[in-house]
């Protein structure tokens, strides 16, 4: 027999009462509900009902709560979805619901929207067009319609959208549901990618070098304008062809294969070689090849070619110029050697042939003066002695000239020279004559240098003897020798207080047989400084002088630390 229960039920669960009573019936209870407000005296009795009954009751209450919650959550999710969600009536097309995201983006309130239809938002559609669009959904030949268009906001501004439109029937409702995405950002990103593409595209297309892009089996995917210009192939000719078949001359096949193999196996290459164009004409190119990676996978390779025929021609020209230059240098050197030999022969001839007649002139005149002295009058004696002096002088000139030419041909042999010792010994050798005993001779602590001892000794002999000669008229002759060291060289100076010279003739100082003083004042033949100049030049040094007439002279010469042999 069934036990009868009296239950208090909250007013808001009234609707669930039948469900509860059927549940309890299954467990052997008959139920009588008492509304909450009728509940007064039965309090204690209910509390004593079985545990099971209580649990069932609680579970039902909980289910109900959850169902309510779910409904709320669903509407919350829809309302707050980042997608724009629209529901509009299938007949009137008027909006029944538009979620918050859509309302905010459009700038309309819900009240305003209930008076609007999708046509008010979609300026790209006419009424007819829109009806045509939704017809297949409505007659269920299409489940969902996916399309892109633009939405117009309340303020008139537009934004691009992607629409997913579907139709449903629920009880008495006939409605469309549109889930819409504002794709402004996506389009911006797409445009950016397209812009990048355009940049790259025009860069490749118009690059001044021939570019080819190959797939991993060396087939042409793309070529650029310059490639067409250089090799004569159009994009349509080239695509799908093996690059090696297109532009590598038959005899260089192996080189071409190795190059493509290297690049497709991930190496970068760079070399110069010969390639051919569509007509078989060959020319020099520089080749640059590299693989192209995407997400760490090699997806293609590219090669860049530059026509370097002109550069190669120039190189060949330079090479041949160099060769002819070298030949010329050799020829000139040979000529120079021959000229030097001739000069030597000339010097020999001069030394031998000119001396003999001079010796005869000098000898016979001497004999005349000695053996026929009593026949010659004073004038005759004077004339013969002039001949003797002149021929003697000419003999000296010839000797000096030969000496000068010998210095020009001398080989330099460098050694470390103690300059102060050298200068002092030269001065000592030169000052045996009485008049030079009272010369004040100063040598400071001058620098040493690597040079040819015999040649530089000759330099000091000539310079010091000049200084002695040109100070010979002074009551207190003075000669001072100094040196200064600079970055690359040492400069030696020799200063005297002698006759000096006029600076306007300084260019003539170092020429052969150039003299700035008469023989009556100072004897000489104009070879000494020419020899000095030649020796200093052989050491790659320089020589110059400063002076004032009657006020002494200073000669400077420089010797570099490292002398290149000439």
């Amino acid at each position, binding site marked *: 027999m069934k036990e009868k229960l009296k239950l208090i039920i909250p007013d808001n669960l009234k609707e669930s009462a039948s469900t509860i009573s059927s549940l309890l019936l299954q467990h052997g209870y008959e139920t009588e509900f008492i509304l909450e407000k009728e509940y007064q005296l039965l309090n204690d009795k209910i509390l004593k009902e079985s545990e099971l009954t209580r649990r069932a009751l609680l579970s039902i209450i909980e289910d109900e709560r959850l169902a309510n919650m779910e409904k709320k959550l669903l509407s919350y999710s829809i309302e707050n979805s980042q997608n724009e969600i629209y529901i509009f009536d299938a007949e009137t097309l008027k909006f029944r619901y538009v979620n918050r995201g859509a309302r905010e983006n459009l700038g309309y309130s819900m009240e305003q929207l209930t008076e609007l239809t999708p046509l008010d938002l979609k300026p790209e559609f006419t009424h007819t067009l829109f009806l045509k669009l939704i017809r297949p959904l409505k007659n269920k030949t299409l489940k969902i319609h996916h399309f892109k268009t633009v939405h117009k906001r309340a303020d008139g501004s537009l934004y691009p959208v992607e629409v997913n439109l579907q139709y449903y029937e629920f009880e008495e409702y006939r409605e469309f549901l549109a889930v819409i995405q504002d794709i402004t950002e996506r389009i911006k990103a797409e445009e950016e990618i397209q812009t990048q593409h355009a940049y790259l595209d025009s860069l490749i297309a118009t690059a001044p070098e021939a570019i080819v892009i190959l797939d991993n089996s060396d087939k042409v995917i793309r070529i650029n304008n310059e490639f067409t210009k250089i090799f004569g192939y159009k994009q349509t000719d080239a695509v799908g062809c093996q690059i090696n078949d297109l532009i590598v001359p038959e005899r260089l096949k192996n080189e071409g294969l190795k190059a493509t193999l290297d690049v497709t196996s991930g190496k970068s290459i760079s070399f110069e070689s010969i390639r051919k164009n569509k007509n078989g004409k060959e020319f020099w190119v520089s080749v640059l090849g590299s693989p192209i990676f995407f997400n760490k996978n090699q997806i293609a390779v590219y090669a860049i070619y530059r026509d370097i025929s002109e550069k190669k021609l120039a190189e060949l020209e330079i090479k041949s110029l160099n060769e002819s230059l070298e030949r010329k240098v050799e020829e000139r050197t040979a000529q120079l050697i021959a000229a030097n030999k001739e000069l030597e022969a000339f010097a*020999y001839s001069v*030394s*031998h042939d000119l*001396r003999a007649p001079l*010796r005869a002139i000098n*000898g016979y005149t001497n004999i005349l003066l000695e053996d026929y002295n009593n026949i010659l009058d004073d004038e005759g004696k004077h004339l013969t002695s002039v001949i003797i002096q002149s021929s*003697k002088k000419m003999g000296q000139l010839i000797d000096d000239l030969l000496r000068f030419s010998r210095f020009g041909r001398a080989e330099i042999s460098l050694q470390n020279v103690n300059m102060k010792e050298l200068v002092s010994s030269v001065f000592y050798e030169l000052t045996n004559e009485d008049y030079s005993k009272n010369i004040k001779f100063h040598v400071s602590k001058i620098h040493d240098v690597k040079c040819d001892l015999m040649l530089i000794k000759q330099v000091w002999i000539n310079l010091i003897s000049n200084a002695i000669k040109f100070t010979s008229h002074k009551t207190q002759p003075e000669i001072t020798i100094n040196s200064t060291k600079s970055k690359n060289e040492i400069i030696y100076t020799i200063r005297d207080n002698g006759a000096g010279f006029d600076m306007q003739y300084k260019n003539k100082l170092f020429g052969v047989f150039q003299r700035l003083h008469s023989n009556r004042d100072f004897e000489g033949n104009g070879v000494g400084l020419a020899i000095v100049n030649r020796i200093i030049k052989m050491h790659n040094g320089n020589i110059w002088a400063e002076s004032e007439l009657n006020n002494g002279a200073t000669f400077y010469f420089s010797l570099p630390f490292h002398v290149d042999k000439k």
Partner: protein
Amino acid sequence: MHNIEPVEIIIVEDNLSDAELILHTLKKEKIANKLLIAEDGAEALDLLFGKGAYPNKINLSALKVIFLDLKLPKINGLEVLKELKENPLTKHIPVVILTSSNQDPDIKKAYELGVNSYVVKPVVFSDFKNVVQKMGFYWLLVNEKMK
């Protein structure tokens, strides 16, 4: 004439003025009486070995010195020197090169060939005279020749 007295000096000199100056100087020193002059290298060799224009061989053992110029027509001085020093008959005879050339290679070559002295003729006569006098004096009077 020359053949009567044994020849003591032979001067090989193509320049007649030089030859005359040598002769003049030696004469002044009174040492020129037994002297012959050859004007080129070929003549010098003919003279010494009794060939060509000189069929009468001179007495080589009496010869005290040969003054030899280097620059000579036909056969030059160094060639003459070479032949003399290679020939056992003449290699003992003192040869003095008396030349205008002071070129290094000539001097070196001459000594290599066995010359006994090398003298450069000075241009100035006083020096020249001095050299010739000393040479004549030394080779004719001081130096002992091979016996």
